[in-house]
């Protein structure tokens, strides 16, 4: 009887032991899985989680893509702006250069003619005294040259600009740019040689008239004539 009970009890104990073993085994396996699994890892996720994640990432991607597009647009705008700035700067520089050339603030060189006038005042030619060269004579020459498209003119290295004056000091000297000059007068002009020559030479031209008056006048042409810049300050004190 005792053995029988023991046998039953043994079977029972073994059975319960096995079930306890199974329970604990499964529980601890599960504990371990839950503890060691990184929920954010993609391999361990369930389909629905993956789907949600994918959607959120897609949205994020969309947002970031939009942002990227915006930034790209902004960058291209800035680039355009900087390019146009550069262009503006180049244009301005070019304009400045041109203005400086026109104003006479830079040394220039180019094709043109050189007129050399020598005052023969007091000489006796054909029973008459030769009169001096007047500022009007020079003005005529300069005017004729400008009329023929001269781009730069100087008299005895005094550049003729908008503020230049040509007048006389007393009976001997002429005055250009408030500087005293005297014979011989070297007038340099840059421009189309043919036009310039045709404007001052020829019958009845200003050179012809000067020659008739008894002065010496020679006209030479040059491929590279250098004209110095206006070497005084251009004053704008009274221009508001």
């Amino acid at each position, binding site marked *: 009887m005792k053995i029988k009970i023991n046998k039953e*009890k*043994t*079977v*029972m*104990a*073994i*059975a*319960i*032991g*096995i*079930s*306890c*073993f*199974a*329970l*604990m*085994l*499964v*529980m*601890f*396996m*599960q*504990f*371990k*899985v*839950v503890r*060691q*699994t990184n929920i954010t890892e993609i*391999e*361990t*996720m*369930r389909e629905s989680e993956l789907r949600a994640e994918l959607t959120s990432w897609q949205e994020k991607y969309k947002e970031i893509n939009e942002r990227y597009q915006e930034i790209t647009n902004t960058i291209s705008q800035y680039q355009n702006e900087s390019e146009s700035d550069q262009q503006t700067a180049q244009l301005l520089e070019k304009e400045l250069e041109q203005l400086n050339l026109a104003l006479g603030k830079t040394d220039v060189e180019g094709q043109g003619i050189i007129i050399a006038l020598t005052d023969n005042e007091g000489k006796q030619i054909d029973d008459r005294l030769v009169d001096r060269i007047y500022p009007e004579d020079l003005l005529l020459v300069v005017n004729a040259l400008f009329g023929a498209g001269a781009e730069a003119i100087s008299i005895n290295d005094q550049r003729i600009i908008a503020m230049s004056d040509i007048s006389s000091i007393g009976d001997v000297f002429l005055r250009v740019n408030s500087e005293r000059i005297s014979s011989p007068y070297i007038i340099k002009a840059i421009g189309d040689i043919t036009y310039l020559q045709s404007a001052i030479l020829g019958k009845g031209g200003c050179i012809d008239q000067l020659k008739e008056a008894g002065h010496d006048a020679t006209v030479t042409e040059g491929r590279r004539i250098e004209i110095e810049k206006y070497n005084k300050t251009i004053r704008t004190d009274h221009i508001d």
Partner: protein
Amino acid sequence: MIIIAILIGCIVGAIIGINAPIIPYTYSTFLAIAVVAALDSVFGGITSVLKKNFDLTIFISGFFCNSILSIALTYLGQKLNLDIYLAALVVFVGRMFTNLTIIRRHYIEKWMTKKQENVENVQE
């Protein structure tokens, strides 16, 4: 002897469970539902012991059948895209609470009777 068997079973199971290889997270639902089913069986067993109608065969078969069935149901639920394991969970946990109530009542009643007897003894 039974207690020794329970202890040995628990300890060996825990050790092997700790050292077992990790199963994929996807299948951990199956294990979890099996654990719940087994726990339900355990509480059922305790209740039946208290009620003195404990049958080893029923206990063991219930223990393993419930687990396997719940796993099978969960698997079916995954295939059907329906969370059947939730239903199994509700049933198991509900039964666990019922069984716990029975166990609690049994011991409280026992304790109360004992106390009353003591009081009566003192009075005598």
